[in-house]
Each structure stands twice: as C-alpha cells, then as structure tokens.
C-alpha cells in the first residue's frame, strides 16, 4: 500500500508540463489494461458462474416460473406466500435445530480431538489424515447411504446394541423423534475441517505461556481457560462463522437419508431440501428462488450477529 502511494506521489511531483501529464495518463491506462487482462479469467468466471445466475435468481424470485414456460412477473407474491406456508416454517425449524445443536457440538469435538493431536504424539500426520477423512466423505452420497443402513431397525447400530444385550429394534431413521438426531450425528462426525484449522491455531500458541503458567502452579483447566481459549478465540470464531454458513446449506445428507422426502413426517425437511422440492419437484422455481434469497438474508443476519458479539469474546493478539 504505502509503496504504491509513494510512487504515485513521486509521479505527481514529477509531472509538471501538460505533455508529461498526458504521457503519464497513457501509461496508467496501459497499466490498467494489463491489470484487467490478468483479472479476466477470474472476472469471466465471476460474471458467468456467480453474478449472472445470482441476478437471474433474484429476478426469478419475483416471477411465477414453472421451468417449462417462460417466467411471468408477479411482484412480491412469492414472498407473500412464504408467510403462509407451514412446511416452510417446519423446514426453518429443522434447519435451526440442526445449526444450533449440530455446529457447537461439532466444534467441541473438533477442538477436543485437535488438542489431543496437539500433544505431540507419534504419527501425527497419520492420525490427522484419519480424523480428517470423514470431512471429505461426510457430504457424499455413499456415506449418507451407509448412514441410513446403519440406523435402520436391522442396522449396524442396533446389532451392536444387541451384542450388549439390549433388545434394540428402533428404526432410528424411520421415527420422527430420532431421524434428525441421526443426521446431526453425521454432521458432528465430519469434524475434520474445523479440527485441522484448530490444530493449526493451537500450534501458533507459544509453548512458553504454558511453561510459565505451570511454574505458577496453574492447573490444566486454568491453562485451557486462561491461555488456550483466549488465544484460540479468533480461530473458534472463524470456524463458528464458516460452519454456521455451511450448516444452513446442508442438503445431501437429508436428501439421501430420507430419499428426498424430508421424512418421516417432515422431521428432516431441511431448508435447502424443501427449496429443491419446490423448484424441481413441484416446478415452482420462482418460489424456490425467493426461498434462496430468504436463506441469504438469514445467513447474513446470523453472520452479522456473530460479528457483533465477537467483540465481547474474541481476542486478537495484535
């Protein structure tokens, strides 16, 4: 930053005659052109893949669009209809439970495992990879399928319970009371990516703080409370923000575990799953687009709240 501003100051001082000024301007324009040229691949991607569809979906949210016929402008009707949609409420409820229960639990597990791994054990790289693996697989169709079979009435979970003499016949995925819990469990299991970030953060905390604390007779818990947590708080915050954003968009697990229905009894009707049902199942892409924008607002609100409260608990070393 400063180097560039210095340069421009030098230019400004030097350019005295009008001729010189023109020359400068031409040079600057050429520099800009080169800059834009380098930016071009990214810019094309942004416009075609992100911005274009984004604007299109905003437009569609004000239309009645059946996919088959051209969209018709209906103003705010889609948004008005959302106010009177019991399944939308249900999907919000499911998604909020998933986010509010699943994300903190996942982060606690991630932090706990990261601290274990940070104890300087042998074969760290191996364990790190093993623990990271579920993150790579968790959102995949295959794992969701396995999950479904594990929690069926004759599934692995019940078979293990029976080994211990518990006559378990509950179908965890088929009962509205338990179905969402199995998907939250799947979410917690994919703790790998926040764990890796935590691990990196833990590595940054200078060991001398702990040494000094031990000399002063601080317990492990006190060390964790007074050293680890404050110094790690930016990382915790980072993971929290990202995981909340991710969790709001959970789709694959719910889709596969419930066969795309959000069942039983809409107990796993995630917001994005409902959006998908509206758009592709019921040919109401306009309504689905409006739902997508509501989700943007919700995620933005959550993120803003997160940032607002962060000043009370996040400690930046600088």
């Amino acid at each position, binding site marked *: 930053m400063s180097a560039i501003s210095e340069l421009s100051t030098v230019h400004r001082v030097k350019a005295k005659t009008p001729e010189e000024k023109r020359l400068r301007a031409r040079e600057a324009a050429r520099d800009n052109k080169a800059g834009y040229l380098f930016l071009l691949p990214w810019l094309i991607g942004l416009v075609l893949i992100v911005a274009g569809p984004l604007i299109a979906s905003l437009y569609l949210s004000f239309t009645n669009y059946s996919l088959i016929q051209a969209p018709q402008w209906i103003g705010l009707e889609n948004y008005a209809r959302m106010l009177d949609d019991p399944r939308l409420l249900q999907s919000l409820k499911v998604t909020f439970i998933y986010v509010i229960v699943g994300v903190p639990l996942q982060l606690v597990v991630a932090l706990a495992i990261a601290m274990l791994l940070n104890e300087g054990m042998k074969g760290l790289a191996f364990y790190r990879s093993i623990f990271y693996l579920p993150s790579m697989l968790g959102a995949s169709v295959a794992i969701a399928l396995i999950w479904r079979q594990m929690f069926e009435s004759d599934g692995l979970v019940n078979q293990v319970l029976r080994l211990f003499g518990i006559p378990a016949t509950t179908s965890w995925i*088929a*009962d509205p009371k338990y179905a969402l819990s199995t998907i939250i469990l799947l979410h917690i299991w994919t703790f790998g990516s926040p764990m890796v970030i935590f691990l990196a953060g833990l590595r940054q905390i200078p060991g001398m703080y702990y040494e000094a604390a031990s000399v002063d007779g601080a317990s492990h818990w006190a060390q964790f409370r007074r050293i680890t947590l404050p110094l790690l708080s930016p990382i915790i915050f980072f993971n929290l923000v990202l995981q909340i954003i991710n969790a709001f968009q959970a789709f694959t697990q719910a889709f596969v575990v419930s066969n795309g229905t959000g069942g039983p009894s809409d107990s796993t009707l995630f917001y994005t799953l409902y959006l998908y049902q509206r758009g592709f199942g019921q040919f109401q892409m306009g309504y689905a687009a409006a739902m997508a924008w509501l989700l943007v607002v919700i995620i933005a609100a959550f993120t803003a709240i997160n940032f607002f409260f962060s000043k009370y608990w996040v400690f930046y070393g600088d």
Partner: protein
Amino acid sequence: MALNRRQFLIGAGGLAAAATTTGLGACAPGAPSGSQGGGGEQGGKTNLALAWWGNPTRNKNTEAEIQAFQQANPNITLAGQPGDFAGYWDKLATQTAGGQAPDIIQMDMAYIAEYGNRGALLDLEKTGADTSKFVEGTVDSGRINGQLVGVNAGINSAVIVANPKIFEKAKMDVPDDKTWTWDQLSDVAAEVASKAGVPFGVVYLFGGDPMFGAYLRQNGKELFTEKDVGFEPADAQAWFDLMMKFQKAGSIGTPQQISEEGSPGGGKPIDQSAIVLGKAALQYQNSNQLEALNAASGESLKLLRAPSLAGKATERKAWYKASMLWSASAKTKNPEAAVAWINWFANTKEAVDIDKAERGIPPNAELQEYIRPKLSPAQQEVAKFIVDIKPELASTPIAPPPGGGKLAEIMFRYETDVLFGKASTAEAAQKFVDEVKSNLQV
C-alpha cells in the same frame, strides 16, 4: 497469533460470500445441460434424442429397439438418453427449461399434465399417431385438454401381489380376490402376519395413490377432476381411519416399520421391497413389476385384485393404467420422425418382439394376441390378468392436473403424522386436501 483481525475479515468474508453465492447460483435457469438434446438434420438425416427411465433390462431392450427402428427408417438416427426414475424428472425439467428437451420423451401419468398443459408436448394425433388398434380405455389417458400428448406404451393395473410360500407357512389359503372386501383383506393380512411371523401382512397398501384411487372410485369419487381434487376431506379421513383400523388389527406393521419401508416408488428399490425379502405376505404393486419381483425374490408370486367395498370384483371400478407413455417435445425439429418412432413402437411386431411386456402389456389388440405365446410365464400371467379384469373396468381416470403429481408423497407424509400420533385423522385429512389443492392453484 498468525491471524489478525483484518486477515480474518478478508478470509471469512470471502469464504462466506463464496459459500452463499454457490447455493444461489444453483437455482438459476437456462444452464446449458451438456451436449445432449435438440434434434438436428445433417446430410438428409434426422437426429433425434430419445429419453427414457428404466432398469437394466429396459435399457438393453430400448437400445435394441433403437437399432431395429433405425434399420427400418434409415433416414432417422436416434440418440438414447437412459436414466433412472428419480433423476429423470429433474433432468427433463432442466432440459425443457433450457430449450433442450429430448425429441421423444418417455412420460409418466403423474407428470403428463404438467408438461402437456404448459404446451411442452406435441399434439401427436395431429402429427399422425396411430392408435386405431388400441384396446378401449387405453388411449384417453394420454389426452390433455383434448390433445393426444402421450401414447400408451404398455398397460398396467394396480394389483396386490401375494407370496404363496408365506401363506403356506401360515397354513392358510391365498384368499379369493374376486369376493374380498377391504375388511377381509385386513383380517387375512393380520392373520397371515401373526401365523407366519412376518412384520407385514400387507405392505404399501396405503402409501400409494392407486389403492386410494380404487377406494375413492368405489365410493363414487375420483382422485382428480379436470382442474381440482376429486374428493373431500371426509373421504381422505375415511381412508386414514381405514389405515388406522388395519394398523390396530396388526395387518400393516408398526408405525416405525411402515415409515421405514416408505411409500411404493418413493422408498426402497423394488428388489429390496418387503415381499422380495420375505417380510410381507401381500404387497401393493403395478402388474408389470411381477416379473422383476419374481426374479428378485426367486418365488412365483401371485397377482390378486384390489378389494372392493361390495365384495364383488365386478364392482371394484378397476381401470387400465398406462405404465408409461410416449410423448414428443413440442419443440422437436422433426415431429414426423418423432411420431414415426411412437407408431413403430406401438404398432409393429419388431418392436413388441423386443419389448415383450417389459413396459406393460401392449395396448394394441393385435399385438397383444401376437405376443402372448412368446412371453415368459410371469408375463403371461400378467397378460391373462389384464384380459381377465376387462369386465371389472370402469371409466379411465384422468391424469392429475399440473401440480397434482405429488399427491401420493403428500398423502404418505400425513399418514405418517397419523401413525405416529402427531395428528388426528380429521386434522391430517383436512391438511392433506388443503396442500394438494394449494399445489394445483399455482
């Protein structure tokens, strides 16, 4: 710390933006869906895209049919687009939205109005589709607003499949399906389930719309009228009450078992359905699936009629269902060539020699006669059944109006609510009708 506030904001902001925007972008229209679709003409040859859903047998058959058709029509080349049922409709919707609909489309009764009413399908009669030899009651299912937009590709009927081995184990006879009532079905199912020690006496009975349709028709109602739902909340409540009666009698398993088994077509693949795994004595199914069920279970299952209120099969208001239909895109560049395929499939021996009864019994009366001796034993049984039930047929139900294709899914959801005690049958029935109606209005 390595991470200061500014770096954090930049990083998190960027990632957050990326995460949210990708979600939104996925909902945009008109994304080009690859190179398929769209007919074109090259050097006097017409290229058409042909889409179907199916199973390995049907895929093999259809490829062979395409070869045979191309030999008979050297000017037409067909490019096949096979798929499976669930993904098929998403793909077709996006292709249609992008103006790249396949020229020839295998269509289902649940979706034909969705496309037909919105002008996405060709009027086949006008283009020369020939259904003159079709059995009565097999043409009209493809008519939307007076236009023939789908030609029946095979006749089906909603049936109850029985596993004789399980009845044997219970030391019971397979019941007489010409005289049984719904209540008798419940009694038989409860008895066989407890005596043979299987979870389900009868499975899928309440989860699908055909059996609900049969029940409604016997009560003088229909699933749908031209533009509306054809029944009242009270009718739906009666159906839900019947389900609870079955459940309390022990005929259809526990709520958890019912929920886990899912709805027909919406849950497990057919080769893992309860009757195949020996967990059910009776199972609702479409008649053309008998062979697949036999193959998967290694049994020879029996076809039974749906029960009636009066205890007389002739009063059960049966109907021929189109297991699937052939439609053509309204935007196809060569309507004649698309209809040529449809006519070839519906009316030639070459086609039926390959397809046999895999897509259902051929609706063409002459071909029905022609192919019967060549069918496998299971298919022969189906063909005989289709002919036998002719005296029991009533009017052909109309296709669900646009937005009505999800009736079964909605019904099963409210049934699950009732089964788990989350709603009374009256509440669930009211909500069920309201939701189906609200989908139709859009």
